[in-house]
C-alpha cells in the first residue's frame, strides 16, 4: 500500500510537470519540465520492478533533452503563442468522455471491470498466457537470468531487429533533413 501511494504521488508530480511544460511561456522552461516528467517516469519504472526500463528511460531522456535544448536555445522565439480556443474546447470534451469511459472500463462504478484490476496482471489470472511461460522457463530455454532481456533478444529478436531498423532510418531521415551539402539554393523572397 505504501508503495502504491508513493507511485500515485509520483504520477501526480508527472501530471503537474506536464501541465507546466505545456502551459509555460518560456520554451526552455517547457523543455526542462518535460525532462522532469521523463525522469519521474524512470523512478516509477524502478519502483515497479522494471530496472531495464529505468536505465533506458534515463539515457533516452538525456539525449532528447539535449536535442530539444539545442533547438530552443539556438533560435530566438520570445513571442508567446496562444492555443486555439475551438481546438481546446474539443480536446476538453473528448478528454472528459475518454476519462468517463476509462472509469467504467476499470470498474469504477462497482460494475465488472473489463480490464484486469491494478496489482493483478494477466499473469496471475486463470488463463495466464505467454508471460507465465516466459517467467517459468526462460532459464532452461535460453540460459538468460534476465527475463525481459531474454524476451527482447531471444524470443522476439526479429522485433528488436525491426526496432534497430526504425532507429537507423529515423536518424538517416533527420540527417537528410538537416544536411547542407547537396541542397539546392533556396530562392530568397
Amino acid at each position, binding site marked *: 500500500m505504501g508503495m*502504491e501511494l508513493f*507511485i500515485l504521488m509520483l504520477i501526480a508530480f*508527472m*501530471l503537474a510537470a*506536464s501541465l507546466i511544460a*505545456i502551459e509555460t511561456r518560456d520554451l526552455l522552461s*517547457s*523543455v526542462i519540465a*518535460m525532462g522532469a*516528467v521523463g525522469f519521474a*517516469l524512470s523512478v516509477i*519504472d524502478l519502483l*515497479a*520492478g*522494471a530496472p*531495464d*526500463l529505468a536505465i*533506458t*528511460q534515463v539515457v*533516452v531522456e538525456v539525449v*532528447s533533452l539535449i*536535442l*530539444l535544448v539545442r*533547438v530552443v536555445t539556438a*533560435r530566438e*522565439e520570445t513571442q508567446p*503563442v496562444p492555443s486555439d480556443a475551438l*481546438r481546446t474546447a*474539443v*480536446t*476538453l470534451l473528448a*478528454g472528459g468522455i475518454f476519462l468517463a469511459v*476509462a*472509469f467504467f472500463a*476499470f470498474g*469504477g462504478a462497482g460494475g465488472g471491470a473489463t480490464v484486469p484490476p*491494478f*496489482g493483478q*496482471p494477466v*499473469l*496471475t489470472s486463470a488463463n495466464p498466457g505467454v*508471460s507465465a511461460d*516466459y*517467467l*517459468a522457463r526462460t*532459464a532452461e530455454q535460453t540460459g538468460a537470468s*534476465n527475463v*525481459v532481456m531474454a*524476451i*527482447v533478444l531471444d524470443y*522476439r529478436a526479429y522485433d528488436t531487429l525491426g*526496432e534497430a531498423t*526504425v*532507429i537507423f*532510418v*529515423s536518424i538517416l*531521415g*533527420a540527417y537528410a*533533413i*538537416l544536411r547542407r551539402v547537396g541542397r539546392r539554393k533556396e530562392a530568397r523572397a
Partner: protein
Amino acid sequence: MGIAIYLLTFAILLAGLYAVVAKKNVVKIIVGAAILDYAVNLFLVLIGWRTVSTAAGAEGGAAPILAAGQSGRQLLASAVDPLPQALILTSIVIALGVTALMVALALRLHEKYGTFDLENIRRLRG
C-alpha cells in the same frame, strides 16, 4: 487506489493530446507528443504491476530477474509481468528516433520561415 493511479495516467495522456491538438508552437507540439508517449509507457508498466502478499503484508512484485539459485517457478510466484516491459523497451527507443526526426523538421521549418509559430508558417506558404 488502483483506479486513481490509472485515471491520473490517462490525465497525463490527455494533457499531451491537448498540446498536440491545440498548441500552435512547433516546440510545444514536440513536447506534447513526448508527454503522450510517457503516459502510454507508464500505463503499460502499470498493467504489469503486481501486488504480492507476503508475511510482512502486501508489497510490490520483484523485477523479473532470476536471483542466484532461484528457479523459474519461484520467479513466477513473485515477479511482475515481463512482457509489457519488453515491448516498452522497444517503444522508448523508437520514441527517441521520432523525437529526433521531429526536432530536425522543426529546425528546418525555423530555418525556412524564421518562426516556430504554425499560423505564421501557414500564412507564409506559397
